[in-house]
């Protein structure tokens, strides 16, 4: 019978190998790029003053720890069990027809965060970007219905792929026909589409409709509160200031 400890040692075996490789990479990278002796910045180096000394020490220790961890795991599991586990993992991967629920949930969080930070943060107004992020991530996890989760997520990924294409081809400027803040208008449309998709999934259940209402209210209110506090109270410029900031600026400077 496989115990929790066995499962943990299997993970340790894999992570030990990764650490060995990582430690070896740190050492070779340091030896290849950092001068161990000679002159740098007017300083004559000897091995013990070299900027490479500490990374070599860390890399060597990580390599050693990786070996020890792998050894501990191998001793606990035994060679036959490791081979069996590797074979079982390969065949299990080959037999996967559907993404298991925990993997889907992990992937959904990471993908939505990746899109929010790497794809939209420098392109779309912070308020709109955060609203889009919250309008997707809250319903996906709060509606708590597997099919709805996957549909909303798939819709978001498909829409984001379309937006990537639009940004990559520089079509956002052309679609707007000179309209100011064209990417923000596109994001606004996309957010409305995501909300509509979520609404479609929640329809028919009073409980889910109530949850979605809370989710969408939070998606609009939280960025306004957080972004507003940073922009107008702490005077921190936002990562990207576009359509909503222009409107808020007009209101703020009109009032004060």
């Amino acid at each position: 019978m496989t115990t929790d400890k066995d499962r943990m040692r299997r993970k340790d075996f894999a992570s030990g190998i990764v650490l060995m490789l990582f430690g070896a990479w740190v050492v070779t990278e340091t030896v290849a790029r950092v001068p161990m002796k000679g002159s740098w910045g007017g300083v004559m180096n000897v091995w013990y003053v070299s900027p490479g000394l500490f990374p070599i020490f860390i890399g060597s220790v990580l390599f050693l720890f990786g070996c020890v961890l792998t050894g501990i795991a191998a001793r606990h599991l035994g060679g036959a069990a490791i081979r069996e586990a590797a074979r079982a993992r390969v065949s299990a991967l080959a037999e996967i027809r559907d993404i298991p629920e925990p993997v889907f949930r992990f992937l959904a969080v990471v993908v939505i965060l990746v899109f929010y930070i790497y794809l939209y943060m420098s392109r779309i107004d912070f308020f709109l970007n955060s609203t889009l992020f919250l309008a997707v991530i809250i319903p996906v996890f709060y509606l708590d219905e597997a099919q709805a989760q996957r549909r909303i997520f798939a819709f978001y990924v498909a829409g984001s792929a379309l937006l990537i294409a639009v940004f990559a081809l520089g079509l956002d400027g052309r679609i707007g026909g000179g309209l100011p803040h064209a990417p923000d208008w596109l994001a606004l449309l996309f957010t409305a589409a995501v909300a509509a998709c979520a609404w479609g999934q929640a329809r028919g259940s009073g409980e889910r409709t109530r949850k979605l209402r809370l989710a969408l209210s939070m998606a609009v209110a939280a960025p306004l509160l957080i972004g507003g506090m940073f922009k107008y109270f702490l005077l921190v410029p936002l990562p990207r200031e576009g359509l909503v900031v222009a409107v808020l600026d007009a209101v703020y400077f009109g009032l004060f």
Partner: protein
Amino acid sequence: MIGIERLDTFFAILVGMGTQPANLLLLFGATLLGIIFGALPGLTATLGIALLTTLTYGMGPAPAMVALLGIYVGGVYGGSYASILINIPGTPAAAATALEGYPLACKGEAGRAIGATTTASCIGTLIGMLFMVTMTPIVSAFALQFTSFEFFLLAFFGIIISGTLASPDLAIKGWISGFLGLFLACMGRDPLQAFPRFTFGFPQLESGLDVVAVIIGAFGIPQIIQVLGGTFRAGEARQMTRVMPSFGLMARNTGNIIRSALIGVGIGAVPGIGEDVAAWMAYGAAKNASKEPGKFGTGVYEGVIATETANNSCIGGAIIPLLSLGIPGSPPAAMLLGALMLHGVTPGPMLSIEHPNFILQVTAILFLASIAMWVIGIVLARQVVKVLRFPPQVFMPVVAVLCIIGSYGLGLNLFNLYVMLPVGIVAYFMTEMKYPIAPLVIGYILGPMADENLRRALMISHGSFLPMFTRPVCLILLTVILLTILSQMGLFRWLKGRLRAKNPGM
């Protein structure tokens, strides 16, 4: 004479802070925020400090410390609300509290239990504060004798000891985590010769990884993924009656409180362990010392008083190595160290010389924060617990937005966000594989100290490691490090087993 002068200065600072409405408002606001953060399952005091650091960047060091210590004290205490009312610890530090707190709530004594934990937490914080103010100058004065070799070994000791004690599985995983933190610290230009290391051609990496991006990534992102990625279900909240601090109950538990506070301070002073370990150890000690240990688990007040005294007294304990040596005693203290550095205060032996009143200032803030926590706990507890009805699937994404804008806001640098997410994802996998995260952050913070002092020491000794074996403090540190490592090895355990078998009385 010096003692009386220091006491005078302390009261002057205390009165100065306590009479400024802005400071009081900040203190009560931050403490309340801390209690809310602690009460919400999934959010911790560490994350609270990390997020508040970004908001305090424009303040001076003193008001920033008021806010940060307020949220720290409130955050550690607030965890007990969720433990008692819904049987889900608001923070890891309050996990032990749930064992007795929830059965008490089931008996209809939630209000009385929260009254007891509030008073115990307040007393715990005050005892921790007393140890902090007395021990920090002593340790600092001792540390002034240290040279580069000692500082290198001290950093190394911090990583090894926190790795050993913080690891939920094998100790080696804690050490690996610490060394990965040291590697992160190597990125950027080296501190002595400004040679670029592991920058991969990115100019943004030349100044190294931003401390807030790393800490928010390491502590915040895994929590977001865990709460959203898991199938988190909030328990049904128990009804809470009026919160009553029972002074008779506290008086009967005087011995329990003192013992638990001492455990908390002791655990807090050891680098990188933190409030959760202190609470569990105090719970175990209270059970062992009890006349009716069999009743533990059914809802006994000794249990909740022990855990809450210990986790709050741990705060003062964790600040001792932080201020005297620059080594954080717990994960929230690690974040506090980052915040102090951002505010231009470098903790360590020179702190008392560069900022003579800083320790007294921290003492006064801790005193006021514990009072603020008690007042809020007694007066506003029934309102604060309403946040427990808020679903984590809704507030966690909002915390993600806060993490992101907070990480960006310090350097106004998008690159911080690009660093934060990968660090967070790696930290998530490490957590899943039972690698502790606190040593990673401690390694990252102590990395420059270790690197710089190792090379400086070798420069002075012309490449000789001999001083490590001839200087008494070095020798002690080296011995402790070696013994800590050896104690985790199979050979050592086998020898210990053989010795025990030969001498059953051992």
